[in-house]
C-alpha cells in the first residue's frame, strides 16, 4: 500500500531556525562562502533537518506523534537550498512493507529533492493506531 505523498518546502530561514533549535551551527548550513570552499554547490540543509521533516511525514501517516518505535535513514545526496524566497522542496512518499501481528507497521520511505533521492534505506516502524 502506498501512502499519500507529502511535500515540504525548505528555505534558508528554515535552516537558520533549525540550526538554532538543534544547536548544529555548522556553516555549510548557512554560509555559501564556506559551503563552496569545502566543495559543495552551495548551502545545504542539515541531514537531520531532512530526517526531521520525513519524521513528520511518518508521524502524520501514523496519526500519532508518539507512535514511532524505530526510525533510520542513510543520507545519500545533499539538499541544496538556494538563497531565495522559494528555497527548495522535499517530497516524501512511503509504502507499507509489513504489518506485524503484534501491531507494528513497517514503512519503506522515499525522500526526493528535484527528482533525486536524498535518502536511501529510510525505514520507520510505527505502532498501529490505538
Amino acid at each position: 500500500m502506498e501512502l499519500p505523498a507529502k511535500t515540504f518546502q525548505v528555505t534558508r530561514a528554515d535552516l537558520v531556525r533549525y540550526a538554532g533549535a538543534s544547536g548544529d551551527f555548522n556553516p555549510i548550513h548557512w554560509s555559501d562562502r564556506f559551503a563552496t570552499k569545502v566543495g559543495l554547490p552551495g548551502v545545504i540543509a542539515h541531514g537531520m533537518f531532512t530526517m526531521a521533516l520525513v519524521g513528520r511525514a511518518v508521524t502524520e501517516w501514523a496519526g500519532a506523534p508518539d507512535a514511532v518505535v524505530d526510525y533510520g535513514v542513510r543520507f545519500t545526496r545533499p539538499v541544496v537550498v538556494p538563497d531565495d524566497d522559494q528555497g527548495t522542496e522535499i517530497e516524501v512518499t512511503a509504502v507499507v512493507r509489513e504489518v506485524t501481528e503484534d501491531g507494528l507497521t513497517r514503512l519503506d520511505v522515499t525522500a526526493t529533492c528535484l527528482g533525486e533521492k536524498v535518502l536511501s534505506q529510510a525505514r520507520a516502524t510505527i505502532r498501529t493506531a490505538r
Partner: protein
Amino acid sequence: MSLDPSFVGRTYPPTAPYQVGREKIREFATAIGATDPVHHDPAAARALGHPDVVAPPTFPVVVTMAASRQIVEDPALGVDYSRVVHGDQRFAYNRPVVAGDELVCASTIEDVSTRGGHGFLTTRTDVSTVAGEPVVAVWSKIVVRGEA
C-alpha cells in the same frame, strides 16, 4: 582518512545529565514545522498518557550532541571534523522523550573502517534517564572524507 580500527568497542563515560525543557521541545517542534498539540500543549500530551509535552522523533540528536562531540573530538581518534559528513542515523525508542526527562548518554564505538580513502565511524549512544530507565538508542555513522 584512515581511522584506527582498534577503537571498535571503546566506550565513553556517560555525559552530564541533559535536562529536557518544555520550551526546548516546543522550539524544536516549531523549527521542523511540527504543529501537533502533543509537542506544545501539556494537556494534549497528558491525554495520550505522557507526563508532559512529547519531543518529535529526531529530537534526541539535541541530547546526544555532547556525546558525539566527545568521540569526534577524541584526540586519540583524530577525526578531522571539517571533513565529516553524516552517513546514517537511526533511533530505536523505548518511549518518546518528554519534557522533564533528565537524560544521560553512554556511547560505544561499534564500527570503524576505511574504504576508498574515506573513514567510516559508527557509534551507538544509549540514552537513559538518570534513574537508569532506557529511553532511546541512537546509532550514527559519520564519513570522514579522504583528501581528493
